[in-house]
C-alpha cells in the first residue's frame, strides 16, 4: 500500500511539475546560444517565472517520494514502474499544453503501460 501512495506522488506530482516547467520553458522560447553566459541568463530568466516555481515544488514532492521508496525497493523496480508517467504526461500535455498526441503515440503509451504491469508482477 505504501508503495502505491509513493508511486502516486512520484508519477502525478513529478509529471505535473514537468508540465509546469515545460510551460515556463515555452514562454522563454528556443535556446540557440550555449555559451556559459547565455545559459546563466537562461537559468535566471526561468527562475523569475511562477510556473517554474510551481514545477519545482511539485517535482520536489515527487523526488522525496522517490527517495522514500528507494529506501526499501530496488532501483530496477521503482524506475520502470514510474514509466507510468508517460500516460500521465500524454494526458497532461494534451490538456495543459495543447500538444497533439498522435495515434502512434497513444499506441506506444499503451505498450509502456503493459510493460509497467509486467514489471509490477516482478515485485519482490
Amino acid at each position, binding site marked *: 500500500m*505504501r508503495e502505491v501512495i*509513493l508511486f502516486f506522488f512520484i508519477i502525478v506530482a513529478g509529471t505535473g511539475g*514537468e*508540465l509546469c*516547467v*515545460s510551460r515556463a*520553458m*515555452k514562454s*522563454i*522560447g*528556443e*535556446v540557440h546560444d*550555449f555559451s556559459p553566459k547565455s*545559459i546563466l541568463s*537562461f*537559468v535566471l530568466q*526561468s527562475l523569475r517565472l511562477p510556473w517554474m516555481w510551481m514545477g519545482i515544488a511539485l517535482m520536489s514532492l515527487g523526488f522525496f517520494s*522517490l*527517495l*522514500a*521508496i*528507494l*529506501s*526499501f525497493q*530496488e*532501483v*530496477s*523496480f*521503482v*524506475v*520502470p514502474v514510474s*514509466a507510468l*508517467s*508517460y500516460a500521465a*504526461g*500524454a494526458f497532461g*500535455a494534451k490538456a495543459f*499544453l*495543447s*500538444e*497533439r*498526441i*498522435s495515434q*502512434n*503515440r497513444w*499506441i*506506444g*503509451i499503451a*505498450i*509502456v*503501460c*503493459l*510493460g*509497467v*504491469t*509486467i*514489471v*509490477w*508482477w*516482478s515485485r519482490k
Partner: protein
Amino acid sequence: MTQTRRLQLKTIPMILISIILGPLGNVFLGKAMKSVGPVASGGIHDLIPIASRVLTSGYIWLGIACLLGFFIVHMLLLTWADYSYVQPATSLSYLSISILSYLLLGETISPLRWLGVTVICLGVFLVGRTSPSTTGAPHRA
C-alpha cells in the same frame, strides 16, 4: 537542411546525454537510500535523524549532481521540443537503468522484469518516432 532535420541534429545528442545522466543519478540515490534503511515505516519524529543520515551520505550528493545535470539538459531540450516528445525519447533510460542497477548495485533482475523493461522500451520506441514539435510555432516549415 529541413527544420525537422535541424531539430533532430541537436535534439538527439542532448537526449543521449540525459539517458546516461538520469539513470546514473537514480542508481546513486538508490545506493544512498539503501544505506539509510527503510524510511516510509517510521513516524514524523524519525524525520530529522533520517534527513541527517541522508544528507551526510556522499552518494546522495553524487546522485543529485547527476540529476541536476540531467535536469539542465532536459530544460534546454524543452525550450525547442515538445514535452510529449522529450519525455518518451529520454526514457530509453529505462533500459540503461536496468543495466546500471545490475552492474553497480548488484540487483538481480528476473527474466519477467527484463521482459517488462523491454516492453516499456518498445513502447518508448513507438512513442519516440513522432515529430519533435506539434503545436505549430511560427518558425516551423
